[in-house]
């Protein structure tokens, strides 16, 4: 690798945009290069010195109001409400139909509540300075740590080489039960991967949902239920899910 290449690529390295192979090449060049080493140091310093949070602007309230006014007013009558109305009015037929719908609606509510709890657990983990109970990037330390603390053996795979750094593990509570959380980092973003006992043994593909601005991908595999929660964009979160699954599947086969 030449200095001219490294001089550009070291920015991609700082931004966490390189795969492990290229990252290694750039690091190897920079380490032994009197011209590139100070550059990497200098730009890392710059990146860290940027008070990013304070460089944001907040939209004035008047602008927000102006924009909201241009949107048609939302109708606040929920579907559930109208279903219940049907219930009260009820002939036998509409009662039967409405009952089916109510169950479907309540089920959706149940899902929403679960997602809400997962999101809250993610937010709590970021707020309370309690991201990890066991802090190590060694998957063979994290996995046994969960023994006896949760009633599952969560799969812990190290995805550092794939761009997702394993930070450690944490015990959390969701829906009244202890769950394992495996914590990863992508650039400056934290990904909490919650693992609980799954309801069904069939595998479901990951679906993207969002709650309070966080992206959540939820899937089941091998009797376990997974929730990956983060503020990274949906595509990168899917990339995380894919890489996790790819690393998890062969291991479970042995």
């Amino acid at each position: 690798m030449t200095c001219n290449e490294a001089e550009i690529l070291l920015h991609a390295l700082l931004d966490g945009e390189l795969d492990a192979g290229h990252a290694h090449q750039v690091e190897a060049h920079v380490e032994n290069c009197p011209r590139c080493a100070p550059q990497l140091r200098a730009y890392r310093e710059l990146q860290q010195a940027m008070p990013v949070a304070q460089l944001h602007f907040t939209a004035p309230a008047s602008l927000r109001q102006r924009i909201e006014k241009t949107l048609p007013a939302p109708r606040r009558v929920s579907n559930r409400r109208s279903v219940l109305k049907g219930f009260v009015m009820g002939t036998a037929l509409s009662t039967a139909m409405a009952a089916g719908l109510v169950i479907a609606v309540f089920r959706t509510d149940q899902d929403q509540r679960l997602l809400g709890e997962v999101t809250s657990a993610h937010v709590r983990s970021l707020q309370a300075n309690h991201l990890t109970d066991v802090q190590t990037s060694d998957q063979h330390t994290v996995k046994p740590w969960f023994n006896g603390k949760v009633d599952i053996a969560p799969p812990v795979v190290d995805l550092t080489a794939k761009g997702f750094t394993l930070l450690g593990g944490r015990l959390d509570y969701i829906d009244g039960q202890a769950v394992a959380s495996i914590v990863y980092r992508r650039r400056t973003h934290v990904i909490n991967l919650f693992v609980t006992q799954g309801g069904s043994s069939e595998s479901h593909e990951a679906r993207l949902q969002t709650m309070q601005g966080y992206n959540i991908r939820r899937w089941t595999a091998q009797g376990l239920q997974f929730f990956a929660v983060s503020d990274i964009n949906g595509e990168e979160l899917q990339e995380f899910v894919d890489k996790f699954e790819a690393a998890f599947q062969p291991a479970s086969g042995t």
Partner: protein
Amino acid sequence: MLDRPQRQGLALPWKAGDDMMAANGGDAHQDKARRFRDAALPHLDDVYTLARYLLRDTADAEDAVQECYLRALRYFDTFRGTEVKPWLFAILRNICRGEFARRSRVTLAMDDTTDDAEDAAPLWQEEQASPETEMLHQRDAETIRRLVADLPNPFREAIVLREINDLSYREIADVVGVPVGTVMSRLARARSMLRKAWIAEEGPPT
């Protein structure tokens, strides 16, 4: 470079070719507005932040953001991606480049610095007073905002999208409409300029 024709409409990867799904009746319309509200309004501060850095004027930024949300609502049916934020940024950027660039007072703000002039200077000047040992003094956010805002486009845009709005290279490339390699070199140049300006900043550190 300056005479490059403005792109007409939204030449975005997310935009579908034809206008399908015309709102059929009030319910669909309401539903669309509600989905749009949930998807787009949470990004208002981010869109406004980008507008402030691109236009460097509070009133212009507000107008551009309002226009951005109007257009986004209109085109929301054709949005096929998963990430709303870069999509809004691309719309905002087109607005800033289009209508606002025609107004004389912001023309300079949106003009692209010719890449040639910038490329003439090496990224890293070793003869400078040992830049590797020169420490960056802590500066208050106001100063850094100004230093970022003073960077010439397209470098300002690149660093704002990466550092402040936290987009990936791929997303920046889609928003700006250039290859990822160009994003990378612009970012390298932007950081080089920002660091020089930061070090050159006079006055006692905060």
